[in-house]
């Protein structure tokens, strides 16, 4: 299936600028991470609402929290590992514990920086932020959802973490409707339910077709909100299909797979197969090679689901 490919950074920047037109409190904080990475439009329009601090992520989070104390809605966007792992305590206390209205965007998540190696991969960001109570976590599925999620995030009262890979991402959904906390059944099915998040989901949609050709009728659920997770849709899927697979460009521990497993363990126990990145320090290399290695490719997902369903 051929999808229009769009520049995620541009969408982030444009939506921020548009919402900033409507809400004079929106401002942007950058750690040498904004002008050439999507926020150019905002900076041009609202230079006095733009705070560049340099390469200092702990400060960026602290400053964002301070701005929020004065009623501003700060948006801090930088590569995923550097807005989560690096300033984790600041995120936990200045944003989470104080319940500040700060929006943190982890861009270039997953293997997006495939050239740059484990120091630049964002494979544990969802797991980390899940441990901070009350922070909403969004991982939009496509370009439309990214636009919708950005708007929803900027209009929501409270801390939000949004993660996105910023290589060109497909436009799959037609409109940018987005409701925080809701999963979407993209494909009905009864043999297995595949729950997926983030822009790697496009591989799941293709895999579902291949599975259908192989006689497996897969339900596909897009889950762009990881916290608070849509427990209802998970339980319904578990009841209907009896088998769940999760897919994410994130460690197979701690992220979507773990969140879904926790719901099942609590409410309706079914086997859950987590497809994600093995918990190890993967070498750098071409993005496709890394995706293949982790079986996050269309073939990899198809194979894994076939095996899992056959058991």
């Amino acid at each position, binding site marked *: 299936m051929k999808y229009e490919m769009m520049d995620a950074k541009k969408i982030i920047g444009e939506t921020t600028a548009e919402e900033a037109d409507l809400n004079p409190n929106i401002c942007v904080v950058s750690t040498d991470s904004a002008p050439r990475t999507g926020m150019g439009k905002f900076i041009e329009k609202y230079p006095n609402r733009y705070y560049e601090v340099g390469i200092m992520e*702990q400060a960026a989070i602290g400053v964002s*929290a301070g701005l*929020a104390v004065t009623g501003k809605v700060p948006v801090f966007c930088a590569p995923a590992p550097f807005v989560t792992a690096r300033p984790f305590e600041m995120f936990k206390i200045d944003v989470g514990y*104080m319940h500040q209205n700060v929006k943190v965007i982890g861009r270039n998540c997953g293997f997006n920086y495939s050239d740059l190696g484990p120091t630049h991969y964002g494979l544990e960001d969802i797991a980390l932020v899940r441990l901070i109570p009350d922070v909403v976590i969004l991982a939009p599925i496509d370009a439309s959802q990214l636009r919708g999620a950005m708007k929803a995030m900027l209009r929501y009262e409270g801390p939000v973490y949004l993660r996105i890979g910023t290589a060109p991402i497909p436009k799959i959904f037609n409109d940018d409707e987005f409701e925080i906390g809701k999963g979407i059944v993209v494909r009905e099915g009864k043999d297995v339910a595949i729950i997926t998040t983030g822009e790697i989901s496009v591989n799941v949609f293709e895999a579902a077709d291949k599975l259908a050709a192989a006689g497996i009728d897969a339900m596909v659920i897009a889950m762009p909100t990881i916290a608070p997770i849509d427990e209802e849709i998970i339980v319904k899927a578990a009841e209907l299909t009896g088998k769940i697979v999760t897919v994410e460009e994130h460690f197979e521990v701690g992220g979507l797979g773990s969140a879904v497993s926790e719901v099942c363990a609590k409410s309706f126990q079914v086997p859950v197969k987590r497809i994600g990145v093995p918990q190890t320090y993967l070498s750098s290399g071409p993005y496709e090679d890394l995706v293949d290695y982790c079986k996050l490719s269309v073939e990899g997902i198809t194979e894994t689901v076939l095996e899992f369903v056959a058991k």
Partner: protein
Amino acid sequence: MKVNDINKLKATAAKCRQNVLRMIKANGSGHLGPAYSCIDIVTALYFYGMNVDPQDPSKADRDIFLLSAGHKGMAQYAVLAEAGFFDKSILDTFGQFKSRVPGHPDMHKLPGIEANTGSLGHGLNLACGIALGKRQDGYGSKVFVITGDGELAEGSNWEAAAIAAHYKLDNLVVFVDHNGLQISGQTKDVMSFEPIASHFAGFGWATKEIRGNDMDEIVAAIDQLPFEKGKPNLIVANTIKGCGFSKAENQVNYHYWNPSEADMALAEKELEDYLAGVQA
């Protein structure tokens, strides 16, 4: 400032120390040393240096105080109570489960608390964010921060130092409670970065050094703000940890104090005697 106004401030500081003792009595223990060393500064700020209204604690054009060294929290509680931000009876719940005056301050529990500090090294960046936000909205709000000296080892402070200078936050005033002691012993033995002022000067701050338990010097410093237009302000306040209780002065083991009845009675008596003398 007139001498008898300074005396009033000194008396208020002593009453605030009484409030600290009240909290320690209620809880059985507390950070006496740190609270006592900075309480003269906190008193001077709330009763002289800051534009705040206890009846309207969130008014938009207010000055803002952050206790970056959150473990000195009792000092702020004591002063806020004395200034009328809340009823003094709340102090008696210090340390209790779900208390509004928990071990480290909580902005959602008590009027007058602007941020949840406790983990060292957060306050300066928060302060920069607040200063920037207030400026963006056109308020002349000043932002006052008290940090510890050991706390300055945290790199996040130096990130804030760069931001404050770059953004010319001359409405930002940082007092370093330089009492020379931290948990492991004398600061100069654990980690020496004397002189503190020159470290900040290199980052572009205007600096001053005062005796942090001398009300005249504190007031004089406040009167001179901003020290240099366009530069954030650093005041190295040389304090005596535990100042206000002779037994506690400069004693590492009064950092966190578990008082005996006799010790507490002595501390209380010293304040009563002092107040009698000052008012005389």
